C-alpha cells in the first residue's frame, strides 16, 4: 500500500493549499498518471489535474513528484515510492495553482509567444518547397521534440527568483527558429534574445535538462543560441562580453584571468557597472583574496594557442 500525499487547493473553499493522503495499492506496471486517475475514479472525483494522451505526447500531465517535475504518464509510480511508503504530488512550480494540480500556464504561453515561435522566411520565395538537408534539420531536431509540458519551467532556478526570465521552454522554442536554415530573421532573433531576461540570464543549473521528458533539453539549446549570437556579433551585453573575455583569457594563458573577466564583462566604458564591482573587489582585497596580479600561464600554453588557431578561434 502506498500513500499519495497530494497537494489540494480550491480557492473557493481554502485560502491556502494543503496536503491530503490517499492510500492506494499501486497496480503492477502502472504510471503515476494511472494512479492519479485511479484515485480520482475510486476515491475523490473532485481531484483536479490535466491529462489527455497518456503516451508522453500531449504534454498535459506534468506535476511535481517528490519535489521535482515529471510527466505523470511517463513515470512508473513504483519508481517514485519513498522509503516511508509515500509519494508526494504537487502542482508544477513557478506558476500559480488554479485548483489542485492544475496551474495557470498563462506566463508560460506568453513567453513562448514572445520568442515569435513561427518561421519568418527569407524574402526570396522558391518556386517549390523550402528544402532542408538532413544536416540542416539535425540542428533543430532536438528542440522540435518539445511537447511544452512545462516541466522545465516548473523547476527552473532562475524563474524562482525572476519572473522576467523567458525560461527554458521559450528559449528552446527560440532555438528551433534561430537554428532553422529557412528562417530569415536570425540576427533580429538573437539580438532580442540577448536582452535582459533572455539567453544570458540562464544560470546553468541543469534542472531543465534533468526534467525534460524529451530530447529538447533546453539548457543545451540555450547554449546553441549563445554561439549564434556571438557569431552574429551581438556582443553588447554582459553575457556575450563575459564569454568573449573567457575565451580570450584561455587563449592567452590557458587559464582564467579572474581580475580581468569581471571588468571586461561589464565593459570598460560602463562606469555604473564598474562602480558596482568596487565593494566585492575591496572585500576580497582586504582578505587577500584578490587573484595574483601577475597572471601566470599554464605550462605548454603554446599548444593551447595552437588549438585555438586550428579551430579559427
Amino acid at each position: 500500500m502506498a500513500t499519495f500525499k497530494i497537494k489540494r487547493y480550491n480557492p473557493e473553499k481554502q485560502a491556502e493549499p494543503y496536503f491530503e493522503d490517499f492510500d492506494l495499492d499501486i497496480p503492477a506496471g502502472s504510471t503515476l498518471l494511472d494512479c492519479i486517475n485511479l484515485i480520482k475514479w475510486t476515491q475523490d472525483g473532485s481531484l483536479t489535474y490535466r491529462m489527455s494522451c497518456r503516451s508522453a505526447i500531449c504534454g498535459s500531465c506534468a506535476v511535481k513528484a517528490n519535489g521535482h517535475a515529471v510527466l505523470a504518464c511517463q513515470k512508473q509510480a513504483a519508481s517514485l515510492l519513498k522509503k516511508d511508503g509515500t509519494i508526494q504530488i504537487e502542482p508544477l512550480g513557478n506558476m500559480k495553482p488554479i485548483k489542485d494540480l492544475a496551474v495557470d500556464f498563462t506566463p508560460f504561453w506568453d513567453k513562448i509567444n514572445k520568442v515569435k515561435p513561427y518561421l519568418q522566411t527569407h524574402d526570396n520565395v522558391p518556386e517549390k518547397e523550402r528544402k532542408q538537408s538532413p544536416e540542416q534539420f539535425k540542428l533543430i531536431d532536438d528542440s522540435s521534440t518539445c511537447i511544452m509540458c512545462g516541466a522545465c519551467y516548473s523547476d527552473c532556478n532562475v524563474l524562482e527568483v525572476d519572473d522576467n526570465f523567458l525560461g527554458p521552454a521559450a528559449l528552446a522554442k527560440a532555438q528551433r527558429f534561430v537554428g532553422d536554415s529557412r528562417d530569415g530573421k536570425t540576427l533580429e532573433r538573437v539580438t532580442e534574445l540577448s536582452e535582459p531576461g533572455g539567453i544570458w540570464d540562464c544560470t546553468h543549473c541543469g534542472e531543465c535538462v534533468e526534467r525534460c521528458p524529451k530530447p529538447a533539453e533546453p539548457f543545451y539549446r540555450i547554449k546553441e543560441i549563445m554561439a549564434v549570437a556571438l557569431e552574429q556579433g551581438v556582443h553588447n551585453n554582459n553575457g556575450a562580453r563575459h564569454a568573449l573575455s573567457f575565451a580570450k583569457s584561455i587563449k592567452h594563458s590557458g587559464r582564467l584571468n579572474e581580475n580581468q573577466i569581471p571588468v571586461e564583462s561589464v565593459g570598460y566604458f560602463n562606469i555604473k557597472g564598474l562602480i558596482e564591482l568596487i565593494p566585492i573587489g575591496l572585500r576580497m582585497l582586504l582578505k587577500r583574496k584578490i587573484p595574483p596580479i601577475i597572471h601566470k600561464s599554464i605550462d605548454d600554453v603554446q599548444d593551447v594557442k595552437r588549438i585555438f588557431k586550428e579551430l579559427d578561434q
Partner: protein
Amino acid sequence: MKFALFTGCVSQGATRELMVSTRKAAEGLGIEFVEMKSAACCGAGVLSEKSAILADALNARTFAIAEKQGLDLVTICSTCQGVLKKTECNIKSDPEYKKKINHILNEGGHQYDGTKSRIKHFANILATEEGMKLLKEKIKKPLTGLKVAAFYGCYVLRPSGLSDYENPDDPTGMEEIFEALGATPVYYPSRTKCCGFPIVMMNKKASLEMAGNALVDAIESGADCVVTGCPLCHLNLDSYQPEIEKMLQKKYSIPILHLPQLVALALGYTPKELDMDKHIVSTSRIKRKLVAAG
C-alpha cells in the same frame, strides 16, 4: 591512492585557500596528487558558449595528459567536474567526433583514448568504501557537535547521467563524508540548488537572491556552516554574503567552507593552516564550536 589533480582556475585565483586545504587534506590522508600543470581551463561551461568543439578539444587534451600519467583525474570543483564529464560524454558517444578531436590534438603530441583514466570529484573519491575507510583511519580531531550543511553545486548533480551520485536529486555522498568526520549533517531542500554564480555578472539581483535563499534555508535548518565542493558556489555564498544580507534585508551570517577544509580540520590541521581566515565571512564560530566540543 594517487591521482592527477586538475586544480581548476579558481583554486589558483580567488579561492587559493581551496588549493592550500586540498594539499593539506591530501597530505593528512596520504593521498598523492600530481598537479596537472599543463592542463588548460575546463571552460566552465562558458567557453562552449563560444565554441563547443574548442572546449571539447581542450578538455580532451586534459584527459590525454592524465592518461599519459596513467592516473585517474581528480577535480576539486563541481563545475570543472561536470564540464569535463560533458566533454567525455560528447566524445565517447560519437566515434567520428572523437577522430576529429584527436586529429586536432595530434600536432601537440596528445591522443585521447577514453579508457585509461576516470574523472572523479574529490568528494567522490572519499564517498566510497575505500575513502570512508581511509577517513576513519586518519581522523585525529572528530568534528563532534558541528552541524554541517552540504551545498553540492549543480554541475556534479545534473544532468544525472553524468553524475557520480547514485541519486542526484537526493544525494548523500557529502553528508556521508561529514558523518565520517564526526560532524552532524544537516539536510535542507536547497542543498542541490543553484548558487546563482554563473549569472552574477548578467543578472546580479537574481543571482544573489538564489544564493540568499539557499543561505537562509541552511541557517533555518540549524546549520553552523555550509560546506561546498565548488569554489564558484563558494564565491557567491561567501564573497557576496554581505551584499546578499543587505539585499534581503536580513541580518545573518554563516561561514562557508570548502570540502577539503572541513576534511583537513578533522585531520588535525588548524583553521589558520587552512587559510580559513581568508574568507569574507568569519569562520571563527566553527573554531569556537570545535573548542567547546573539546
